[in-house]
């Protein structure tokens, strides 16, 4: 049995900001980022509403297919994003997501990486930057889900 923190369990049972964003006002843009697939066993679709002038994230929503920590990580991510500029958001690490949750079991750290990657995808989509699919990563696959490797997690965590 995984040792989940109370915060993880709370956000799993009562996730904040689930769903999609469809409405936007003037001067606002909606962007999405998606990682993972059903084949892998986890996937996250992140929706952001961005103020085009200030690049401030006004709203963040998620849809997640995955385990309890994937759902909690997604919820945490959306809470951390609102109010940040895109540049500030880009510097968000998966460790901050994990910290927000009071920690994740080591085997589950990649669930938080998924959030960080979906964020990157959403912002790159918004800015029209092509997505790099991390194929250069070395090390054993520890989550087949979307090619996150050991070394990448370590890099991101450290």
């Amino acid at each position, binding site marked *: 049995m995984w040792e989940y923190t109370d915060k993880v*369990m709370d956000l*799993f*049972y009562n*996730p904040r900001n*689930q*769903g999609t964003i469809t409405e936007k006002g003037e001067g606002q843009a909606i962007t999405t980022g*998606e990682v993972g*697939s*059903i*084949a892998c*066993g*986890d*996937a*996250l*679709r992140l929706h952001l509403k961005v103020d085009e002038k200030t690049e401030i994230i006004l709203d963040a929503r*998620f*849809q*997640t*297919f*995955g*385990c*309890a920590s*994937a*759902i909690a990580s997604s919820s945490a991510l959306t809470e951390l994003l609102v109010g940040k500029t895109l540049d500030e958001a880009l510097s968000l690490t998966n460790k901050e997501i994990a910290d927000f949750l009071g920690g994740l079991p080591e*085997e589950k750290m990649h669930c938080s990486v998924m959030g960080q990657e979906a964020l990157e995808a959403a912002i790159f989509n918004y800015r029209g930057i092509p997505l790099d699919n991390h194929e250069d990563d070395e090390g054993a696959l*520890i*989550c087949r889900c979307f090619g996150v490797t050991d070394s990448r997690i370590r890099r991101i965590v450290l």
Partner: protein
Amino acid sequence: MRDCIYLDNNATTQIDEEVLGAMMPYLTLYYGNPSSMHTFGGQVGKAVKTAREQVASLLGAEPSEIIFTSCGTEGDNAAIRAALTAQPNKRHIITTEVEHPAVLNLCRHLEKQGYTVTYLGVDSQGRLDLDEVQASITGGTALVTIMYANNETGVVFPIEQVGALAKEYGALFHVDAVQAVGKIPLDMSSSTIDMLTLSGHKVHGPKGIGALYVRKGTRFRPFMVGGHQERGRRAGTENVPGIVALGKACELAESHLANISHERQLRDYLETSILTLIPDTVVNGSTKERLPNTTNIGFKYIEGEAILLSMNQYGICASSGSACTSGSLEPSHVLRAMGLPYSVLHGSIRFSLSRYTTQDEIDRVIEVLPDTIARLRSLSPFSSD
């Protein structure tokens, strides 16, 4: 956790009160070593003898054909090693892709030591193809080792047909019956099985005890080497309380076999209700040849751990995959071998009942499960696709 609705009986079971009653004196007063000379040890020896008879009776075997072990895994390891040692010139093993890790990982290990292993596949219903057995078996096959019933799906294999083929080619035949014992009547006296594994904690006995049936006349070398306990076939001071408990558990299991429809009815009710009330659900594995207590259900578009933890909130205990693999992130090797689609693979839950399961408990599951599944689906990016 009195309020737990325990539907994880293929992982482990509750000790029956009578079993506990039978073992208690051997945890307290009668602590002697059955191998000792003094009466104090000797009394204990008699209790071990009775237990051996009880286990033998459930299997339709003779007491001398029963070796007590510490668990199902030990039984599997001991049987497979013994079969290979007895036939040093044969280097081929036949097993299936859906065995418990106790057999599967040992076979993988033996491959590294120069054995050739055929892993029989299963169809999308989890069933074996006898033609595949026939096609792979040769005179050089030392051992056919397959499970009686699968722990994840409950699917029961055509044991005697496989055994007949094994006999025809002179291979030894071992059956991991950890999940079948107590749920299906077994009779070794009319069987093709040479060795059969069972585990105490799956039949309302305690953890830490199991047994291996070895047909009279089968050459057997001990896995655990040391003292001459179990007539030289399993060294180590006998786990007397465990043995006595296993004996009683087998006696109770034998008499309960007549009422096994209790589990079957509740299981069927649970299964039908889920399929009816919750959209996008499927039963994994053949429903024809199946253990009466088990159903494995795929909830499409959501993930198993999330389902388990949500049910856990309501005190409902079930599992995804076997307990042995639930610590890992891999989807079940059994469901993968069945070639299930990904939408099902990751969201499958095993419900396994016992003679203690009640109608009220199943009603409660049926009451809370639809909303639980709906909530998780509302979080998923796929369900609306």
